């Protein structure tokens, strides 16, 4: 008889389980929801945190990296001004939603209500045995928002989901549905507190019906001691278009998963990701993209600026189903490595079962271009300023693709500030 011995729980694993025991009585939801939570927690207890032996966590050994799990206690987080003035803000202060009135064409409810409505249990399932984020978030989720945009509606103002956290634990979930031909721009923003060390998780589900056109911007501004585990799942209907921007600009340990399914013909994904990495941080962006039907297209560009001892990871998996002829997928990962002690790992992964497709991927690691630097300096721009302009330019090129000029300006200012603070 073989006896498989499981390694003992790490301090972090123990803290997660203790934490659950502590809060389970206060978590919202009916009996099926409670049962779903229990199931997810026992899966965490059984399997522990993922290690590098799991392919999808190979570059982010969570069991080693996730060290301190804070208690529920926290500082006082506060709502801040939206990124773009005039945005419709859906605030989450320390993970708690608020009552917000919304314009016509938009329906909104808190995730807490959804959890209590009896419909939520089926949503609290993990993607698979390696889905630690789904497990953790499903077990602990307290609140969030669920909203839907009616068919043919164009939501003019930017919707800003604004989560502010000051230490402690925050676990939120979001569901956003976009009806046929609906258009909207959403800023999904998470801000931490400099002086606090918090743990947060978020699971977001986007459903784009046929012809919907959505710009979704994930803006991660964690404090330097924060740990962030986030996952976005999106399904694109026929001719639906998702422009997904990810900006990572903070955190001690960050994993952002993006799982996108191009499920209807003519669907298109643009992913633009900017990773600003400094200090002693570890940031992982993991994409899985399924081209599941014929005639779908995608383009992914990831730009990384690496300073100090920061480590970054991009895993980009593109799957092309056998029926998905005429798929066109272009993926690029470019890293500006500005420190000898920093590192970036890029892992493209193409699984192609159709024969008439175009799939390309490339990864580059570069330093500041000498010719560019000389040109700027020959115009009287000091070396420091010139370098700053070039680093900014390297990532601003992606931001410039956004159509909303206010948004471009706000994001470029934010990036400029980050580089000034860390450069």
């Amino acid at each position, binding site marked *: 008889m073989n006896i498989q011995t499981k390694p003992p729980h790490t301090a972090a694993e123990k803290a997660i389980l203790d934490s659950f025991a502590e809060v389970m009585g206060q978590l919202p939801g009916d009996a099926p929801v409670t049962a779903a939570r229990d199931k997810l927690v026992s899966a965490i207890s059984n399997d522990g945190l993922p290690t590098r032996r799991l392919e999808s966590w190979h570059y982010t050994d969570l069991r080693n990296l996730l060290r301190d799990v804070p208690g529920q206690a926290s500082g006082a987080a506060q709502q801040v001004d939206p990124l773009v003035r005039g945005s419709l803000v859906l605030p989450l202060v320390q993970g708690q939603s608020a009552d917000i009135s919304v314009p016509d064409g938009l329906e909104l409810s808190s995730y807490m209500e959804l959890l209590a409505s009896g419909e939520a249990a089926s949503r609290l399932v993990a993607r698979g045995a390696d889905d630690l984020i789904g497990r953790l978030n499903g077990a602990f989720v307290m609140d969030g928002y669920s909203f839907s945009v009616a068919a043919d509606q164009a939501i003019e103002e930017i919707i800003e989901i604004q989560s502010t956290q000051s230490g402690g634990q925050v676990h939120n979930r979001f569901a956003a549905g976009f009806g046929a031909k609906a258009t909207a721009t959403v800023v999904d923003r998470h801000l931490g507190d400099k002086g606090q060390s918090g743990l947060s998780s978020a699971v977001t589900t986007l459903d784009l019906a046929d012809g919907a056109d959505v710009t979704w911007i994930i803006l991660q501004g964690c404090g330097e001691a924060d740990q962030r585990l986030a996952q976005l799942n999106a399904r694109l209907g026929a001719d639906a278009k998702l422009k997904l921007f990810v900006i990572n600009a903070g955190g001690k340990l960050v994993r952002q998963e993006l799982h996108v399914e191009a499920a209807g013909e003519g669907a298109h994904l643009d992913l633009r990701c900017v990773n600003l990495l400094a200090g002693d941080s570890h940031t992982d962006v993991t994409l899985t993209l399924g081209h599941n039907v014929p005639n779908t297209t995608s383009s992914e560009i990831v730009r990384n600026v690496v300073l100090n001892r920061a480590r970054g990871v991009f895993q980009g998996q593109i799957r092309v189903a056998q029926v998905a002829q005429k798929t066109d997928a272009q993926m690029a990962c470019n890293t500006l490595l500005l420190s000898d002690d920093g590192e970036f790992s890029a892992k493209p992964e193409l699984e192609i079962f159709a024969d008439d497709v175009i799939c390309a991927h490339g990864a580059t690691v570069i330093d500041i271009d*000498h*010719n*560019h630097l*000389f*040109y*700027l*300096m*020959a*115009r*009287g*721009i*000091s*070396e420091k*300023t*010139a370098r700053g*302009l*070039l680093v*900014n*330019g*390297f*990532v*601003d*090129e992606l931001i*410039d693709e956004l159509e909303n000029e206010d948004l471009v300006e706000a994001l470029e200012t934010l990036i400029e500030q980050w580089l000034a603070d860390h450069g």
Partner: protein
Amino acid sequence: MLEIKNLHARIAEDGTEIIRGLNLTVKAGEVAAIMGPNGSGKSTLSYILAGRDDYEVTEGDILYNGESILELDPSERAAKGIFLAFQYPVEIPGVATMQFLKVAMNEQRKARGEEELKTPEFIKLVKEAAATLQINPDMLKRPLNVGFSGGEKKRAEILQMKLLGPQLCVLDETDSGLDIDALKIVSDGVNALRSPDRAVVVITHYQRLLEHIVPDSVHVLYNGRVIKSGDKDLALDLEANGYAGIIEAAA
């Protein structure tokens, strides 16, 4: 204004000597043309004046207004009023042209202890200068030099020169890649900057540019040295007879 004394310089990376004992003096108010066959060191000279660190000066000196500039980096030289119009202006994606112009103008002002330009004042200056060079304002909305045609890039160089108002302008083959109309616009732009307290060094292969920007002196560069100097008739002579005779006479 510019005194180059027995200059020797080589490529930093492999030690190849390019400039071999070059002497040249350009006075304030003077337009000096530098001509020479391919590989004579013309572009290298322009880079060395601007301070590119791919080249090492091994001997001699460059005096600008009586002071050696060898220890200054490119931005310090530019702030002192040295401007190089590039033969091949580089495209810099992600850096907006207007932002670049504003940073450049203000950094130079700052280095000279002057006050920074306010935005409306800056925009007015750029618009006026762009109009005289027939530069479409839409061009200025693009990233620096990105998607500019050859002629647009050269006009953009002259625009920068106009806005930065240098004392010593070095034009490196500004005529290459220009059609006749663009050549006229660019030349007019340069001529408008001629003044008693400004010197211009025009590096060119062809006499054609010198019909528009008429030089006070012409210098023939060969093998990293000036082998003959003269007035504007020297350029005409070169156009008619080529370099061979002069090179032979100097040998």
